C-alpha cells in the first residue's frame, strides 16, 4: 500500500490525468502476455503515466525516497512477466511518451520516445525509403521501450540482427532519479564502458528508458517470399544452414515442424501433402531482380538437395501475405489445439537444431504432452510450445517438469534459456543453471551498482 500523502505527491507530478488507482484499472496492469497466473502481489498499488523525462525523473526521485518498487511497462506484450509487479508498488507505464522526435536523414538516425509502437517506427521509416529491421511478431502492439528492454528479435534477425544492434544511444532515468545519456549518433564510440548495451535487455531492472536513438538503413528495393516443404525436419534445418553458409543469407528463415504445419492446415482447411514433415518460410531481399533471382535459385537448389518436396515462390503480394499470415497465425492455430499453450524461447547454435528438436520430442513424449516447434531457424531461436490443459489434475506439475527439462536440454547442446523474450519472472529459477554461480554473482553486482536500493523491477531476473 502506498500512503495517501505519497500518492498526492505523485499526482502533483503527473496530474490527475496520469494517475490510476481504481481497483479495476490496477487489475488491468497485473498481467502481460506470459502464462503467469494472476496473483495478488501482481496487482500494482498505483499506475503512473508520465509524459516527459522530467516527470519520470521526478517520479523516480520520490519512489527512491520512499523505497517504492517501480515496474516499467510498455504495452504488456512481454512473454516472461517482465512488466508484472512481483511485490506490488507502482507501474510506470510509458505508452503516453509516444512521439517520434527526430529523423536525421543525413546520418540515418531516428530519435524516439519509449512508448512509440514498433510498427509505427517501421511505417514512418518505410514511407521515407528507410528501414528499421527488428520485427518482433508483436510489432503492432509492442513499444520500442519494451523492445529495447527485452532486446527483442524477430524473423529478420538472421540477416539484420536484433533490436540491440540498432540502438545507438539512450536516455535513461536511474533508480535515484538522475538522468543519464549514453552513446549518441556516432556509429563508433569506445569512450568508457558500453552502457548503452548494458541497458539493452536489462528488463527494466537497471533504469527507465526515456529516449532512444535508433540506427536506420536504406529500405531494400525488392522482397520475395518462398515456402519450402520438406520430408524431414533435419532436411529443413540443413537447408537453412547451407543457404546461410553459401552467402545467400535470407532476410528470414522461419522453421515449422509437422504439428505446427498441421495445426495451420487444420485451422485453414488446407490440404497437405502427406510427405510433409517440416517447412521453412524464406524471405529474401535486395536491390536488383537479378541478384534476388540468383539467391532464390541457390536456395531452391539447396532445398532440393536437402529433400524438399515443394518450393513455392510467392508471385503476387497476395500470395506473399498469405504465406506470412500462415507464419504469423501459427501461434493462434497451435493454441487452438489445446486449452493451454506454454511457449518457450530457447536459442541454440544453429547446427544443433536437429539435435534439440529430437530431445524436445523425447521430453514431450516422456511426459505424454503434445509439442509443437517453430521458430527462427536462421539464428537457432526456437519457440517450442507444450500443449496442455493446466486445469487437468497433475498436468501443471508435468508441464513445469517438462519445461525444466527443455531448458536443461537447451543448455546441454550449447544453447541458452532465452533468445529474445527475456528472463522476467517465468525463467528466473533456471538462470543460475545457465550462468553458473559466478555469473550470477557478477550480474547481481551490476544490479547492485546501479540500483543499490533495489527498487527497479524487484523480483525479476534474479
Amino acid at each position: 500500500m502506498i500512503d495517501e500523502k505519497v500518492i498526492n505527491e505523485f499526482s502533483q507530478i503527473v496530474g490527475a490525468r496520469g494517475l490510476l488507482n481504481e481497483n479495476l484499472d490496477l487489475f488491468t496492469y497485473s498481467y502481460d502476455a506470459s502464462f503467469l497466473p494472476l496473483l495478488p502481489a501482481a496487482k500494482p498499488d498505483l499506475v503512473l503515466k508520465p509524459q516527459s523525462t522530467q516527470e519520470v525523473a521526478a517520479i523516480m526521485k520520490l519512489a527512491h525516497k520512499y523505497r517504492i518498487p517501480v515496474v516499467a511497462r510498455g504495452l504488456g506484450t512481454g512473454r516472461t512477466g517482465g512488466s508484472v509487479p512481483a511485490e506490488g508498488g507502482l507501474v510506470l507505464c510509458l505508452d503516453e511518451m509516444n512521439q517520434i522526435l527526430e529523423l536525421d536523414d543525413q546520418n540515418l538516425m531516428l530519435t524516439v520516445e519509449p512508448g512509440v509502437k514498433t510498427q509505427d517506427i517501421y511505417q514512418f521509416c518505410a514511407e521515407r525509403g528507410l528501414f528499421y529491421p527488428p520485427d518482433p511478431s508483436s510489432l503492432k502492439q509492442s513499444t520500442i521501450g519494451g523492445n529495447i528492454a527485452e532486446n527483442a528479435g524477430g524473423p529478420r534477425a538472421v540477416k539484420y540482427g536484433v533490436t540491440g544492434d540498432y540502438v545507438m544511444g539512450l536516455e535513461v532515468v536511474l533508480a535515484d532519479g538522475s538522468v543519464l545519456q549514453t552513446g549518441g549518433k556516432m556509429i563508433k564510440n569506445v569512450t568508457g564502458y558500453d552502457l548503452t548495451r548494458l541497458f539493452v535487455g536489462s528488463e527494466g531492472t537497471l533504469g527507465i528508458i526515456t529516449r532512444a536513438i535508433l540506427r536506420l538503413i536504406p529500405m531494400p528495393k525488392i522482397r520475395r517470399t518462398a515456402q519450402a516443404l520438406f520430408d524431414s525436419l533435419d532436411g529443413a534445418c540443413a537447408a537453412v544452414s547451407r543457404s546461410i553458409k553459401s552467402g545467400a543469407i535470407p532476410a528470414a528463415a522461419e522453421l515449422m515442424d509437422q504439428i505446427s504445419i498441421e495445426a495451420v492446415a487444420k485451422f485453414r482447411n488446407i490440404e497437405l501433402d502427406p510427405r510433409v514433415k517440416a517447412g521453412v518460410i524464406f524471405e529474401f531481399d535486395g536491390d536488383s531482380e537479378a541478384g534476388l533471382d540468383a539467391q532464390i535459385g541457390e536456395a531452391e537448389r539447396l532445398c532440393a538437395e536437402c529433400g524438399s518436396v515443394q518450393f513455392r515462390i510467392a508471385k503476387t503480394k497476395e500470395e506473399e501475405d498469405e504465406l506470412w499470415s500462415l507464419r504469423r497465425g501459427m501461434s493462434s492455430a497451435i493454441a487452438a489445439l489445446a486449452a493451454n499453450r506454454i511457449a518457450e524461447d530457447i536459442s541454440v547454435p544453429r547446427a544443433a537444431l536437429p539435435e534439440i528438436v529430437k530431445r524436445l520430442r523425447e521430453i514431450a513424449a516422456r511426459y505424454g504432452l503434445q509439442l509443437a516447434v517453430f521458430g527462427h531457424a536462421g539464428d537457432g531461436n526456437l519457440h517450442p510450445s507444450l500443449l496442455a490443459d493446466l486445469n487437468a489434475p497433475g498436468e501443471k506439475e508435468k508441464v513445469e517438469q517438462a519445461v525444466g527439462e527443455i531448458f536443461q536440454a537447451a543448455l546441454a547442446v550449447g544453447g541458452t534459456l532465452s533468445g529474445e523474450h527475456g528472463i522476467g519472472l517465468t525463467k528466473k529459477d533456471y538462470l543460475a543453471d545457465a550462468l553458473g554461480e559466478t555469473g550470477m554473482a557478477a550480474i547481481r553486482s551490476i544490479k547492485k551498482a546501479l540500483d543499490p536500493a533495489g527498487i527497479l523491477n524487484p523480483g525479476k531476473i534474479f
Partner: protein
Amino acid sequence: MKQEIIQRLTEIVGQDNVYTSLEDLYCYSYDASFVKSNKKDLAGIAVYPGNAEETAKILKLANEEKIPVIPRGAGTNVSGGTISVGDSIILVLKRMNKILELDRKNLIAVVEPGVVTGYLQSEVERLGLFYPPDPASLAVSTIGGNVAECAGGPRGVKYGVTRDYVLGLEVVLASGEVINTGGKTIKNVTGYDMTKLFTGSEGTLGVITKIILKLIPKPEAKNTMLAVFSELEQASEAVSEIIAKGVVPATLELLDNIYIRNIEEYAKVGLPTDAEAVLLIEVDGDRQILAKQIDKIEEICKQSGAIQIRIAQTPAEAEELWRARRSAFPAVSRVRPTIIGEDVTVPRSNIPAMVKQIRAIAAKYKVIIAVLGHAGDGNLHATILTDETDREEWSRVEKAIDELFIAAVKLDGTLSGEHGIGRVKSKFITLQTGEAGLEIQRRIKQVLDPNNILNPGVMFGK
C-alpha cells in the same frame, strides 16, 4: 617486487615464463601511444600464463596482495593502456595463442586471447569464411587486445566492429573467479549482456582468456576505386549519398590534402596535389552485383563533383590504388619525427564541420594536423605531426589535442571511435559521459574489481 611474490608467481607459470630483469621490464614501460612510464614506474614482473587456470591463480594472488595487474596483448594500443604503473604485474597473454575451434557448421571460431588478428583471418579465409574486423595493426595485434579495445578498422562501415562479432567470453575476474558470458548462440538475452560490457573495457574489469567469435561467409569478389575531389564537402556529400542509396562499400577511406601531397611526394601514385580530398573505396560481394555497385558509386561521386575517378580493372591496379592508402603513414612520418593519431569520431554528416575545426585548431596552435579517416562511420584520424623533444611545440600540441576533443564532443561526437581511453584520455572522459555517466562506470568498476587491481589509472585516471 617482493621476492616472495616473484617466487609464488614463478611457481604458477614456471621459470621460463617470468621476466624480472631491468631490460625486460623496460619493454613494458611503453606501448604504441606517445606516453611512457617513468623509470620509477617500471613493473615488478612480467608473467606469461599458459591458460585460464594460471591466469586465475595470478589474479587471486594479486588481489590478495593488492598488486596492480596490467593485462597486455601485443602492446599496439595507442592510448597508454598497457604501460607499467610501478610495482605491478604485467600479464602478457601472448602465449595463449591457440585457435581452439573453427566450427564450420555454426560459423563460429573459438580462440585464445593471444591469437594474432591477421593469423586468425587467414586461417578462417582458408575455409571460405570471413572475420571482418581489420584494425590496421592486424599483423601484430591480438584478438584479446581487439576485444578489450573494441577495435575497428576500415571495414567497419559495412561490417561493424569487433563487438559485433563477439558472441561469448571466458573472463577471469579480479578475484580469480572465472565466468563465461554468452555462448555459441546468435541470440541470447539470458541475464545482462556481460559480453558487451567486457568488450571495450580495456582490461579494467577482467582478463579475457577465451573468445567465441561469429564468422560470416567470405564475399565472392571485391574491387577498388578512387575518387578525387577539389572540395572536402563534396567528398563528404558523396559518402552520405553512397550510404543513403544502400550501396554500402566495405571501406570508404578519406584522405585530406596534407596526406595527398605527402603520399604523392613519397609514393608517386598520380594524385593531383591540389585536391582537397580523396576517397578510396572498396566494394565486395557477389561478382554480378559488384559492377553495378561500382557504377552507382561512380555516378554518385560524379554528381558530387569528383574531378577524377579511377576504377581498378585488375587486381594489380587495385593493389596500386591501395598503395596510396598504405603509404599514408610512412609518407607523413617523413615530415616530423613524432606522429600522434587521435581518433575523434562524429556523426557522419558532421565530418566537414569537424575537419574545419581541426584546421582552425591547427592554425591557432601552429601545428600540422593531417586528416585521414574511416569516413563511412565518421571516424577521423587526426594525425598530428610534431617533435616531442621540442618542449615549446609539445605544449602547443597538448593544447591542440584538448581542443580537438572538446570540438568533437560539441559536434555530437566522441573522444574515441576505436582506440579507447586508456591513460592518455582519462582526464577528458567526463566531457563525454558527464558526471552521472562516469559515476555509473565507477560503480561498475567498483563492484567487479573492488581493490582496483586491474589496470588502475585506465579510463578513470588516478
